[in-house]
């Protein structure tokens, strides 16, 4: 991604011809991220996206699995097949037990140089960003961070990587023309999860790391897991009730919590509310917070600024409550109520409660 976007010239309309040596690069790769025996959902989301690109380009989709030797690591290959991969490159080595930059960068760089993919996608997690930046620099190729849309230009066989810029006010499409592979990262929950098909299979191509521990300078002395203290899991919530500055006072946020508790939903918030300390950082939805895609998103006292919108636009159904009929949120919500959130929220809580009581009786 360009650091000085505004001085860039557009790629132009003239026909682009890829150099011969780069034409050998074929296929789409998705780096399969996992930690402590669990596959990261962003990798599965990327397989869904990768499948679409592979079909458009008429090439294969491969997963790249690197980890400690054993059944668990191998099972990630099958999970990748179930989510759309045709094959998996598998590197098993005890040196890959914990994530460290050096062995993972070497392993992935070697694979790319040997098997030459044209596009490689990684999750924009702490691990994915650390690895993607290192691999792209080692390979001297282009990398576009935090993409929200991926497409291909079939003529140039070029990845069209679209990402928000200037805090989400604008979108820009970035291409890596005469370099391969074309690399991109995507944040969790930005892309939909593909259907899991457990009947799918694929081939496994095994390779080795070719490294010894003494050659790796950085050592992991200890891993201190986060306490499992009911951390909010907004990205995976099915229902979210969110509040913005329009809630006026921190005390009024209780009305948000009441509705959320009644529905068994998570509570979300906009950046100004988080900065004011009304709710904690984990609950911030938007460009600088979490990306969410619940079935139902209820936004109270939220104007719908673009920075918030980019984080929740993919919700199935959005209900907006705002006293300003011209608030931008009414341009993209499905249902709107113009009025005072302080009286409407309790009314909504009550209406859901009655509905639930009726449903319970009927059930």
């Amino acid at each position, binding site marked *: 991604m360009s650091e000085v976007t505004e001085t860039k010239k557009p790629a132009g309309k003239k026909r682009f011809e890829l150099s011969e040596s780069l034409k050998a690069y074929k296929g789409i790769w998705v780096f399969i991220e996992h930690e402590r025996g669990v596959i990261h959902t962003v990798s599965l989301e990327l397989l869904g996206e990768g499948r679409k690109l592979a079909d458009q380009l008429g090439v294969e989709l491969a997963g790249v699995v690197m980890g400690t030797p054993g059944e668990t690591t191998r099972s990630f290959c099958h999970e990748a097949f179930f989510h759309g991969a045709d094959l998996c490159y598998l590197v098993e080595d005890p040196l890959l037990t914990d994530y460290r930059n050096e062995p993972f960068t070497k392993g992935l760089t070697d694979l790319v140089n040997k098997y030459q993919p044209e596009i490689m996608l990684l999750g924009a997690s702490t691990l994915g960003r650390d690895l993607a930046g290192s691999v792209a620099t080692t390979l001297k190729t282009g990398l576009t961070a935090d993409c929200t849309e991926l497409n291909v230009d079939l003529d140039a066989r070029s990845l069209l990587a679209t990402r928000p810029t200037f805090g989400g006010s604008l979108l820009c499409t970035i291409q890596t023309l005469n370099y391969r592979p074309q690399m991109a990262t995507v944040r969790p929950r930005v892309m939909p999860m593909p259907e899991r098909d457990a009947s799918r299979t694929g081939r496994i191509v095994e390779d080795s790391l070719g490294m010894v521990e003494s050659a790796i300078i950085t050592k992991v*002395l200890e891993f*201190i897991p*986060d306490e499992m203290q009911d951390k909010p899991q907004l990205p995976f919530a099915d229902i979210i009730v969110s509040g913005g500055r329009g809630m006026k006072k921190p005390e009024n946020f209780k009305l948000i919590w009441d509705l959320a508790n009644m529905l068994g939903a998570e509570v979300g918030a906009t950046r100004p509310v988080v900065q004011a300390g009304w709710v904690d950082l984990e609950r911030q939805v938007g460009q600088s917070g979490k990306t969410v895609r619940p079935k139902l998103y209820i936004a109270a006292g939220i104007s719908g600024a*673009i920075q918030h919108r980019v984080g929740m636009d993919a919700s199935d159904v959005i209900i907006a409550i705002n006293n300003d009929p011209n608030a931008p949120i009414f341009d993209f919500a499905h249902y709107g109520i113009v009025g005072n959130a302080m009286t409407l929220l309790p009314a909504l809580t009550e*209406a859901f409660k009655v509905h639930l009581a009726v449903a319970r009786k009927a059930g």
Partner: protein
Amino acid sequence: MHIVVCIKQVPDSAQIRVHPVTNTIMRQGVPAIVNPYDLFALEEALRLKDEYGGRVTVLTMGPPMAEAALRKAISYGADDAILVTDRAFAGSDTLATSCALAAAIGQIHKDMPVDLVFTGKQTIDGDTAQVGPGIAKRLDMQLLTYVSKVRSVDLDKHEILVERRSEGGVQLLKTSTPSLITVLEGTNEMRFATMANMFRASRYPVKVWNREQAGIEDVTKVGLKGSPTVVSKVFAPTLRAVKAEIIQCENNEPKDLAVTLLAKMFTKFPKIEQEIAKRAA
């Protein structure tokens, strides 16, 4: 101990507006600030200097006006400041930027060996988090991203112990210097500038290096030529074609509005009703 802190001057993204008709960024009056994430890196470097002694050099690449960001860093207590500026750098993407900064750090290293390079975790304008790792790879330094704490430095053994935020927990890592550390936000709180340092900052002669002085011989490695990525299109997000259905009823009583909303929504989106019903069980 010699620490180089890479910083960037950025427009305050919270104050950026897009022109409603032309869809271009309206920069007039938007203040330029030091990238907020970089201040955590600077403060962490200053703390290490307080504890172990040594020097802190701040480095930035940018237009001549970026000098202001370096002066700010001097006012917080940095010892030296270098601005790398050249027309040849215009249009640099992250790969080209890391090339220029790595070369400049190489030049700094010639004058006084560099033990650590600090950067912020990312910038608020580019948001890529790619330049730090890029510099580390180019200088063949150990890369430690998302560091939340530097526990200790052993200058004789060239060893450093850090806590690194990773998915689901914190890694305690031991590595050797020189290494590059990207500092996580919230790691520390920036100190106040002292009066003496503010005076020093106002008079400090910032070193200005052009491309050759920064040690970059090959002009094709920087700027547009050295950038694999090109921005092919900039556009405004498209709005959903259908606006919200505004719920209204007689008197607009909250209770009636709420009931009407649920009835309409459950009819059109039965799966929402099912989702709610699941919670009744």
